[in-house]
């Protein structure tokens, strides 16, 4: 992005305006589609404006961790497919992909969204492994919020396959839903100068000083946070960002429940 373009975006933000006409604390148009991948046990596509991501969930046999012998295992992976942005390149997941996967994972894991103890098949030996795979299709900013939302929606509509007489997975028979107990929402608040914005576009992300991603549960509890960007935040900034995230998570939750795409 040219310096001129960056300056222009910054000047707009100073006036509480954004390139796409949104308010500072307004989401882009949101679209959520469930069960879009016939070969997955659960899946979702989420669009935030031009950002589009897909999450697919696969249920495989796995081994439990030694210290939790009767709990299923959740594993989130992300690849920043070169398809989604001209700057992304092929190859094994790098620092950014790894961070995204781990932050999405944390939001789900720490909210205890999934009742992993219902995923035990044979204690200490065989459990369900829940693979949550994140694929960005078009990256126009805020991949973490889009990916976290797609992940929890995909998990929410995941069905556990039945086992046949020989104990093999029969993926044609998807029966019980995955026990998803909580539905946390990730809200990333960006800061530039003394302005706070939500749901930044790719261009906005280039001019932000810092971001704080905050996962909030139904009851308004914080279950995960991750600061990024190379400028520090004051404690007051953080307070402010948490308050914004809690508030906007309620709004987003209502939008989703009402099946609406936009807030004012």
């Amino acid at each position, binding site marked *: 992005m040219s310096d001129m373009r960056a300056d222009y975006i910054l000047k707009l933000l100073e006036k509480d305006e954004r390139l796409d006409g949104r308010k500072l604390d307004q989401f882009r148009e949101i679209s959520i589609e469930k069960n879009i*991948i*016939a*070969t997955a046990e659960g899946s979702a596509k989420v669009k935030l404006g*031009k950002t589009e991501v*897909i999450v697919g969930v696969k249920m*495989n046999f796995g081994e439990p961790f030694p210290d939790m012998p009767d709990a299923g295992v959740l594993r989130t992976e992300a690849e920043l497919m070169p*398809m989604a942005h*001209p700057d992304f390149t092929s190859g094994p997941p790098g620092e950014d992909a790894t961070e995204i996967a781990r932050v999405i994972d944390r939001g789900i894991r720490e909210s205890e969204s999934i009742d992993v103890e219902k995923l035990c098949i044979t204690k200490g030996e065989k459990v369900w492994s829940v*693979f949550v795979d994140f694929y960005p299709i078009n990256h*126009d900013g805020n991949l973490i919020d889009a990916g976290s939302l797609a992940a929890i929606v995909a998990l929410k509509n995941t069905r556990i396959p039945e086992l046949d007489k020989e104990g093999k997975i029969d993926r044609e028979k998807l029966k019980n839903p995955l026990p998803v107990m909580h539905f946390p929402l990730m809200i990333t608040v960006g800061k530039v100068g003394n302005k706070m914005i939500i749901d930044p576009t790719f261009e906005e992300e280039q001019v932000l000083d810092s971001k704080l991603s905050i996962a909030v549960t139904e009851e308004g509890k914080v279950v995960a946070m991750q600061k990024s960007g190379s400028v520090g935040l004051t404690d007051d900034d953080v307070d402010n960002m948490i308050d914004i995230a809690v508030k906007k998570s309620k709004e987003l939750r209502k939008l989703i429940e009402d099946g609406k795409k936009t807030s004012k």
Partner: protein
Amino acid sequence: MMKTDEKMIVKGKRLDGRKPDDLRKIEMEVGVIPNADGSSKVSFGKTTAIVAVYGPRSLFPRHLQESESGIIQFKYDMATFSVDDRKRPGPSRRETEISKVARLAIEPVLFLKNYPKTTVDVFVEILQADGSTRVTAINAASLALADAGVPMRDLVVGLSGGKVDDTLILDLCGKEDNYSDADVPMAFLPNKNEITLLQMDGRLTPEETKQIIRNILHAGKEIYKKQVETLKRKYSE
């Protein structure tokens, strides 16, 4: 090819009710990825490929040595959740081979020599796999290249043929692929009568092989029409 007692064709109908020469429902769309210079999404039944094209764009210095002509880079990737048992991320040997043959299937329509020191990058993601993934990917790549405005001397059509239960069929689904007597994925330039991808697995007489190729060329015309319509639809919007 694996074996099964299940009949693949019963009373002239295939597992999903198709007649031997029927194709599955084909859906095509372009312009699905705003960041890309060109993009598309193509489904043959439950097989779905999404493709982004970036370029022609500059090659990184380390590749410049080999580039009197421009080059095409083609990456065929299956999403982990596109198959029954989760595929491990990273290219398998199968995906590596398909990336190569699909690149060679596309290359003949491009004028790469006119774009020295550049690369056209084609990224394929198979979102759902139910047979015939590589030819679905090639149709999608053809559309995405056209959508990107990359000069092409023809479109590229992909279609698979094969044989099950002593019957020559077209557009194999996953189960037919697994239990077929033969599987022939093919790509060709519909206006040039040039076959640019041809592979075969199975067991056929020479005559059957030739017949399948003819059948694909014939039925592929419809796919070509669909590609043209899809592109027109976009530009008339």
